[in-house]
């Protein structure tokens, strides 16, 4: 069906009748302003990629601030970074990578009409997401107990700079690191929480049987968001946790 024919259909005609007039099967998944399902899917996907472009710039500003201060106060940043549990950070990276795998498997299950697998993978994705937030919570609790949360009770006294055991890190500069750490990981965690909300909705839709091999665009769009959040973490992990670890 070409564009001109679709555009020529007068408004107000019920979609069934409209489809019949052109001898085409009625397709409830195709919105009337799209010519084909493929065009509809590509439009949704393009919109999501443009949104992700704005997200990249959003996080980009924080990465830029981080890079400038890291260049200025490298030793203090190294000392502050060393106080974070890198094993927890690495585990969280692995958890997110596994969640990205379950997302693509859920989409594959939708494409191949495997409803149980799709629902299972969506539940697993959410469990991985919750695990990530749980580990993050443990990490934040440690920082809170060590008085590494920026503010009045912040203290980072007599912490040696890596590679310079005779020098102590400047607490003011370390506080800048922890401010960036909490803003960047906090913003990332907020994205995870929004992602969990999205996936709860996707799970509900999948449960109701709304996704078919022909139509599962929400799943693909939600997946793009989830993978983007994963990519942000892929950069946050080495930049925040592994600045100057070697003995």
């Amino acid at each position, binding site marked *: 069906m070409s564009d001109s024919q679709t555009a020529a259909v007068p408004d107000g005609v019920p979609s069934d009748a409209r489809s019949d007039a052109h001898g085409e099967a009625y397709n409830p998944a195709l919105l009337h302003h799209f010519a084909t399902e493929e065009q509809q*899917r590509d439009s949704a996907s393009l919109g999501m990629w443009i949104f992700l472009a704005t997200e990249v710039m959003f996080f980009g*500003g924080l990465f830029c601030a981080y890079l400038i201060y890291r260049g200025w106060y490298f030793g203090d940043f190294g000392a502050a970074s060393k106080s974070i549990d890198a094993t927890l950070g*690495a585990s969280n990276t692995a958890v997110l990578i*596994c969640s990205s795998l379950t997302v693509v498997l859920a989409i*594959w299950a939708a494409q191949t009409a495997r409803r149980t697998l799709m629902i299972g993978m969506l539940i697993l994705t959410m469990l991985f997401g919750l695990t990530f937030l749980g580990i993050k919570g443990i990490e934040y609790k440690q920082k809170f107990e060590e008085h590494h949360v920026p503010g009045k009770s912040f203290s980072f006294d007599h912490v040696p700079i890596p590679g310079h055991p005779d020098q102590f890190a400047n607490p003011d500069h370390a506080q800048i690191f922890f401010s960036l750490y909490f803003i960047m990981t906090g913003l990332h965690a907020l994205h995870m929480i929004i992602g969990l909300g999205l996936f709860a909705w996707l799970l509900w839709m999948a449960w109701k049987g709304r996704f078919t091999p022909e139509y599962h665009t929400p799943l*693909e769009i939600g997946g793009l968001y989830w993978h983007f959040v994963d*990519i942000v973490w892929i950069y946050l992990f*080495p930049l925040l946790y*592994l600045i100057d670890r070697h003995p």
Partner: protein
Amino acid sequence: MSDHSTSKSSPLTTYFAVWAALLVGTFITYKAAFLDLGVFNAAVALTIATTKALLVVLFFMHLKGAPEKLLKLVVISTIFFLFILLALSMADYGTRLRS
């Protein structure tokens, strides 16, 4: 996407291979951070991170083989503008005299 009807097992192989590569990359990043590589510590970490990000974008987000060329334009412009943001800021702050 459109080729799911023709090949049923090959996307799964790709997905699991990418997943394994991402886990290995994480492990190498973690281990390499504890070695003294001098200025190359950051370079190694960022190279592995970028490789991992590329794997996710190309295979999990299906940019490879995407039918829409506009998508690639969006991704390239995103990287371009991020590069402008970072490079020009660094050129400014990196060349300032600080007391």
